[in-house]
């Protein structure tokens, strides 16, 4: 029973961290141009997001 006291919060916090990261990526426009991102990796010059 004692183990739950930190295991359950740890599990939930990890999950929340993942959810938060996804929400950030979504709001930041990381998914706006998936096919473009796949091609841009082949370009040499510096690449600053708009």
């Amino acid at each position, binding site marked *: *029973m004692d183990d*739950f006291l930190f295991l*359950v919060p740890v*599990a*939930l916090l990890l*999950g*929340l961290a*993942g*959810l938060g990261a*996804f*929400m950030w990526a*979504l709001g930041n426009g990381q998914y*706006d*141009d*998936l*096919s*473009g991102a796949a*091609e*841009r990796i*082949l*370009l040499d*010059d510096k690449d*600053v*997001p*708009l």
Partner: protein
Amino acid sequence: MTCCTSAGGIALTVANDINKDGEVLLASRLVGDGIRQTDLSVPSIHCGACIHNVEAALNALPGVETARVNLSTKRATIRWHDGAPPPFIETLRRAGYEAHVYDAGAEVKDTAFSELIRALAVAGFAASNIMLLSVSVWSGADAATRDLFHAISAAIALPTLAYSGRVFFRSAWRALRHGRTNMDVPISIGVLLAFGMSLYETATHGQHAYFDASVTLLFFLLIGRTLDHLMREKARTAVKGLANLASRGALVLQPDGSRVYMPVNEIAAGMTILLAAGERVPVDAQVLAGHSDIDSALLSGESAPLATAPGTALQAGVLNLTGPLTLVATAAAEDSAFADMVRLMEAAETSRSTYRRIADRASQLYAPVVHATAFLTFVGWMVATGDLHRAVTIAIAVLIITCPCALGLAVPMVQVMAARRLFENGILLKDGGALERLAEIDAIVFDKTGTLTSGVPRLIEAAAIDAKALQIAAAIAVHSRHPYSRALEAACPANRVQPLEPDAITEFPGCGMEARVGSHLYRLGRANWALTDSTTDDAGLVLAKDGAPLARFQFEDRLRGGTHGALATLRKGFDIEILSGDHDAAVGRIAGELGLRYSAGMPPAGKVARISEIETNGRKVLMVGDGLNDAPALAAAHASMAPATAADIGRNAADLVFLHESLDAVPRAIGIAREAARLVRQNLILAVGYNLIAVPVAIMGYVTPLVAAIAMSSSSIIVIANALRLGGHRRPDKSAASSAKRTPLNIVEHA
């Protein structure tokens, strides 16, 4: 260069210097401190090299702060310092990319989709965590742990229902308020009741809580909802990314002699408009001065270009081909022919909105049955045992087990797979309802110009023409944008065009081209203009050297690739006819060649009337058309398709847009739609079958949260697996892929 060599051809052929500054400024918007943003639609961006070329070209312009390409939407976003707009479009054209101003203001940002994705993410997070806790409860946790885990689950589930459940609750509430039910009503009731009962169980230290069921249900249903939305949005963006053909404004000559670029809706009757070659007529107008040829294929379906002279009346939307014109507006935009078309279309659309989607029809039957079953279960257990708690628990278990999880996925999943298969074949689907309607059709109506034919004239009997004369003609024709010139150029293999060095080439709009080579004067154009002694003025072109004929060229509108094959397939199952606005002779020739019934000279309203006439005979019509004049008919027909080259308004009215040149797209789309309809039926039967097994078990009270979780997940997985059968395993066959060109909007014939 990679895939983009084809784009270079456009740069050569459309090298005109239209003053687009006014248009660019009009469509840009201020985004902050003296910075303006312009969105350009660049349909020919294909690969990484294109991204680099476009961005490098735009960034090199003075005044540009940043330029960024979005490959998915084929758009370039440019931020520039306020002032005169840099020449974006000319720069891109020189780099080999045709660009169009994209009106960002016209697009409402798609908040619905990001709301769905966020809701899905939250539901996914909650479902996985609650499931984790539930599994330990089901594996036999002791009472104290169980209560703790139930409490934690409740704490996760409550905000999740509030956040992710909104999508369904809102829609259900809207339906109930209007006295209707839809799929979301049983979903909302089931989810809320399950949550409420679980909360009560948690408070009273009960054994069974359905938190996992209510959240997992939301998660599965949101997947279906998101897929449905994604499919529609993808097609919509792709259609929007195609060239914008309607003119946004025009250069107006002011009384004081200055020239101002004005938006279309501010142009009033009586204003003088300066129209460059290559522009579309913005409002109904009359030619004041200048000679040119006009192309009214999109507007009236007429395939041959017409010569204009002072006094000719022009309808809004026709394309000015060869020479600059001075026009006087005869009507404002809202009174122009174009606006009439929009009104006709709106009227036609309202008559079609009676169609109800399969899922909605299914839920109309489903919801009352489910609710009645749950209620009867409650009453039955009350009568049998008198135990209120038990009766309520079992009734809610029935609601949970019948919650249309599989139903909610059954239809969108199939339609998403179908949309993907269509997309692989170069066909864009607007929404799932269109797919259902397409599967029902049993009659097809084709437009002629631009639909059965490619709308691009082709030189006929090229072999009979003296090769030397053809080379000279092609060398002259390179300098013009008249469709016949383009056809001559295409007919002559590129490597054999003589490097003819003319001293002077002049285009006489409405007549032809004149080239001086040494002491000789060549003329390519109408017979009565090119020849010194000509009495005939037949269609086609004449190449003349010092007034004596060298060769005659005849043209015809070429059938689209695959037309014969497609019609041979379609004729077996469908009633086909042609409705065209073109002249009887032109339509008759094509109809005769294809062996179809036809009506020529149809006005837009006539097409609509003919379609409703067919539909009153109990048939369901597929309209395939491209022109402005087809738009009302596209909106009126049971289902509709348009090629990517169609007028904007037509593309927006059509349910499906096909990108490749081949007309094979039509039988293929119908085939996929019918296959999808079969799978949807199968999936609905599977979902009902699942209920037939699960509901009796639930009514008898054997359903625990564990059973509910297994039953719901497995039924969802079965319908998803069945839907996946439509995807992937059949790629488009090779012959079709090679005959259909991969580059939309670039239908240059290499005959």
